[in-house]
């Protein structure tokens, strides 16, 4: 039967990556590519999932796109699987170039791979895995959103997400070191320090346009007396948009560079900045690509690191943030690492007025930016905004003025939502608040 429900007509979005990619396809090419891709995936997991799904629709309410579109079934997790993977399987790979374009649009711009739906499916079907498999197919077909593909190209060419050159990276670190010495005497950002306890890694956008976050980290590290280092060479960027475009080969190269940097520096562990997808790529995905069951070097997210520092008394909180704050739980460190309680411990330690969201922790609504969706760029922004009204309502209900978002994608995505829905709030990283809250010993203060 499969009744086609009415889908609200939206203005057609033109994405050159999808348009030009689809133009190069022929039905034969598509069929061969899809069937090769499915064979290479192995198919057992997919087979189990497809055979088990009873089409009950209970996953629907997990999805922020579905909730924000007033229950339009095209946006339910299973509805998206129907329009993509089932379509591919039903036709045994014989789908038209136009269908591929449509499938790619759904897989890249209507699903954040946030995995909330696998917590709502009674069988625990990993729908994000299915959509990722669809993205893999689209990547192999060469039909990927232009902006996302550009980022993947950047990873391939420069080993970082932002086309940054090596000297720009090092120069940014020097600049931040210099800048923060106005506040902290002899503050250092150690480069290539072999045998340090910690390698700190960040995502490409930090040196590109959020350099103060590196300065923030440096201040915290120096005040807490941490033995840490950055690599001056490739591997400093822990982000990975190739993972989301479906380019697993590039994803693997990028992750390898990151792990090898840590091994070359002989550090005890890697601490990652406040980014969610990067954490997923290092902690959960990249290691598996190389056959490591868990990451070869222990990896912790900034939330865990701050938690340790405060809990162990390595930093002392003396000036709590006064404005009412709420906390957005990023999917990749909540459903991806269960850091809900630690994040709350940290936020409560540094803020006076914390107002929790509902639902929260593992059940929090996604920001609609992650999973590579925000990286699909300006053409898709409006769609992303319309697809997450529910997040705006959820944040508004807290009455907070500041939304703490310990993840880069969430940070940008939520700032967009705040603007679009005129919520009158602002986003902050934990470190933005933490740097002003900690006690700096007199002996460390720079002379004014």
């Amino acid at each position, binding site marked *: 039967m499969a009744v086609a429900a009415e889908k609200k007509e939206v203005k057609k979005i033109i994405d050159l990556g999808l348009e030009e990619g689809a133009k190069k396809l022929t039905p034969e090419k598509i069929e061969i590519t899809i069937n090769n891709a499915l064979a290479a*995936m*192995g198919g*057992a997991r997919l087979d189990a999932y497809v055979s088990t799904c009873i089409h*009950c629709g209970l996953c629907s309410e997990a999805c922020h796109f579905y909730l924000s579109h007033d229950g339009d079934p095209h946006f339910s997790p299973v509805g998206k699987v129907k329009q993509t993977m089932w379509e591919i399987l039903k036709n045994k790979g014989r789908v038209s170039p136009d269908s591929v374009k449509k499938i790619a649009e759904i897989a890249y711009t209507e699903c954040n791979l946030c995995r909330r739906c696998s*917590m709502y499916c009674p069988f625990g079907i*990993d729908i994000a895995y299915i959509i990722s498999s669809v993205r893999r197919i689209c990547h192999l077909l060469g039909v990927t959103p232009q902006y996302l593909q550009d980022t993947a190209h950047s990873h391939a060419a420069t080993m970082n997400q932002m086309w940054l050159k090596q000297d720009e990276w090092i120069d940014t670190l020097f600049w931040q070191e210099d800048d923060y010495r106005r506040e902290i005497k002899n503050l250092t950002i150690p480069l290539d320090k072999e045998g340090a306890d910690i390698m700190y890694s960040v995502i490409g956008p930090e040196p590109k346009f959020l350099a103060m976050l590196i300065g923030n980290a440096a201040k915290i590290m120096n005040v807490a007396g941490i033995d840490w280092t950055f690599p001056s060479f490739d591997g400093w960027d822990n982000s990975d948009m190739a993972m989301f475009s479906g380019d697993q080969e590039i994803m693997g190269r990028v992750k390898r560079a990151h792990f090898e940097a840590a091994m070359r520096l002989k550090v005890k562990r890697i601490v990652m900045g406040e980014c969610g997808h990067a954490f997923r790529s290092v902690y959960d995905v990249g290691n598996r690509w190389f056959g490591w069951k868990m990451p070869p070097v222990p990896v912790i997210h900034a939330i865990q690191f701050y938690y340790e520092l405060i809990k162990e008394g390595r930093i002392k909180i003396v000036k709590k943030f006064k404005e009412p704050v709420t906390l957005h739980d990023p999917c990749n460190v909540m459903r991806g690492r269960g850091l809900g309680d630690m994040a709350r411990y940290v936020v409560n330690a540094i803020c006076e007025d914390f107002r929790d969201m509902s639902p929260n922790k593992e059940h929090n609504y996604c920001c609609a930016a992650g999973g590579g969706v925000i990286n699909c760029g300006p053409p898709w922004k409006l769609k992303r905004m319309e697809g997450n009204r529910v997040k705006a309502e959820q944040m508004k209900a807290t009455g907070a003025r500041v939304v703490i978002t310990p993840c880069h994608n969430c940070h940008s995505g939520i700032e967009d939502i705040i603007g679009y829905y005129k919520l009158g709030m602002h986003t902050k990283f934990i470190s933005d608040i933490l740097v002003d809250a900690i006690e700096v010993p007199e002996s460390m203060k720079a002379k004014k």
Partner: protein
Amino acid sequence: MKFLMSEGFYEFVRGPMVWLAFLVFISGSTYRIYKIISGLKKEAVVLPYMSFKYGLRSIAHWATPFGTVNWRRHPVMTTVTFLFHFCLIITPVFLLAHNILLFQSWHIRLWTLPEGLADLMTLIVMLSCVFFLLRRFVAREVRFVTYPSDFFILAIVFLPFFTGFLAYHQLFLPYKALIVLHILCGELMLIAIPFTRLAHMLFSVFTRAYTGSEFGMVRHARDW
């Protein structure tokens, strides 16, 4: 009708056909599970992450009525789903008429449900099927993903209970014809399990356990 009620056909459906149905059900199920597990060995990133502890933890939450957020969000669906599956499995196993046949053939004695209760449980299964059917038309998110196969598997589950109910109450058709139909429908269901999406009976514990393991062991998070 005459053929349906003939002694020869009756003997066939309650004799060799039962063996055949069980043979197909068991070997088919074993094959499908074997196929998936051997495929997963090749995929390499699944089996090493299976954890007995976290798999069971997840199954326990989801096997408990209202034990998860999503079960609590849908009280009617949850109640019907749990009652349906409970009655679907318990009724045929502990039904007096089935146990008499077992006793006659193999002298096995199983605990038996009171007949009135078994009748009620049969009704629950049938009404649940009607509920699932209506849901496929009424709920937009379900209608959108409904295929002819969904009605087919619903009918396969409904029919053995429906014909059994009619036979027990001796309604509409001669008893003999109904009992033959009932046996045939039961056999059809057994045969269909490994080859239709009724296979969720075989796979759901594994899919649940896998997700529970990933969430519990790797991601240190809840999945309910």
